[in-house]
């Protein structure tokens, strides 16, 4: 990184270095990644519990856990929330804390989740009723309420996640913002999925997961604006 021999520097740079050195007061360094992941994760879990209790759980929840597709979906959402949270925290460092492997996990888990949904369309259950699935009828107009709920549940924790990112100095503000919104949206999806008794795959794709991806895209724009330094 450094040059062994000193080269003549322009006077402007000399003056700047002197000025910066004179202003070198002690700083409060960032804690480690685990510290922030634990703190933020705890807040997100408590938030999910509080909202879940307020909304109430679906009556057939224990039955649904026996359905592999449902269980895998919830587990994937939980893994997505956690992995995205870790990746987001790492992005608070300019060099992503020198650990870039974790940054790819949100893509992988999102891909797995979408694949699970598409498999359920391509290989549908022969008797959804016997399988315990609840398919909303077309007459019901609650569909968009799911999206609104997920939006509200995304917005509230997002503020906290962006506040943490602003403490750092991210060099990938778009990606960091996207991960912050995605992590919050994944938590929102879990809450809605545990309380709303509707399992139609088309409904889930159009009103749960497509909006989730939209919020992640929105996070790119918000991140670029809010995470400048």
């Amino acid at each position: 990184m450094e040059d062994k021999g000193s080269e003549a520097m322009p006077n402007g740079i000399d003056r700047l270095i002197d000025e910066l050195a004179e202003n070198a007061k002690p700083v409060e360094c960032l804690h480690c990644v685990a510290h922030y992941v634990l703190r933020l994760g705890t807040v997100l879990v408590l938030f999910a519990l509080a909202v879940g209790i307020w909304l109430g759980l679906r009556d057939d929840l224990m039955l649904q856990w026996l359905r592999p597709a449902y269980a895998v979906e919830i587990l994937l959402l939980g893994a997505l929330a956690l992995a995205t949270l870790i990746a987001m925290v790492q992005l608070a460092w300019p060099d992503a804390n020198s650990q870039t492997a974790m940054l790819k996990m949100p893509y992988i888990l999102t891909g797995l989740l979408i694949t699970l949904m598409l498999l359920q369309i391509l290989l549908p259950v022969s008797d959804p009723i016997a399988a315990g699935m609840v398919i909303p009828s077309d007459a019901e107009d609650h569909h968009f309420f799911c999206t609104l709920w997920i939006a509200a549940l995304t917005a509230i924790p997002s503020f906290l996640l962006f506040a943490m990112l602003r403490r750092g100095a991210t060099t990938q503000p778009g990606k960091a913002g996207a991960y912050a919104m995605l992590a919050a949206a994944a938590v929102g999806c879990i809450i809605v999925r545990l309380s709303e008794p509707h399992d139609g795959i088309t409904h889930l794709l159009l009103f749960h997961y497509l909006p989730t991806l939209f919020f992640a895209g929105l996070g790119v724009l918000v991140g670029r604006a809010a995470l400048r330094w």
Partner: protein
Amino acid sequence: MALSNMPTETNSKSAMAEGDVLIQQPATPEPDNKAPLELLLAAAQDGDCAAYRQFLTRITPALTRMISRKVPMADVEDVLQNILISIHRARHTYDRTRNVSPWVAAIARFRLADYFRHHYRAEITPLEPEMLDMLHYQQQDVTQEAELPELVVEEIKKLPPRQQRILHLLHQEGYTAKETGERLGMKESAVKVAAHRAYKRIRARVGRKPDVA
């Protein structure tokens, strides 16, 4: 600017949180030319002005070289100043358990990307620095100063019509590569490749001209 939300500087050493990895450092290392950059920056985080000055002085030449390869000479100092200021603002994010080079390089690349984003959004096209550098590279002495642009113009006239048109649109009319491509029915990448080949040809021919007495 997010300065108001950056962590406030304290006048006392901050306590490391539980779970953080502690490196047993000697009390403020004596800043000398042999101290590793990591120790200098760690000392700077604790408020050691001399160590911080030495750290910035030692990384500046390498940063200057890196920037000079990508940016016109006239803008090198500005970009370097932006990078040093960014390092100053972000010094609280340096992890003392890690190598400092990736950290500095990440900040430098970030500010370089900012420079390119602002610079090439303006009237100057992305290819102009290459043209300017070519002219600087070819300049032998002041007696050739007046001759060089004429030589370049002469060589441009010998280029295939399409390459002439591309250079005219890029440098005379001030269009970007994308806009030039739209006018000529070419892809942006094809415009850049054609311009690059033209520069290469001109550089080779102008370089072979005998020195003007």
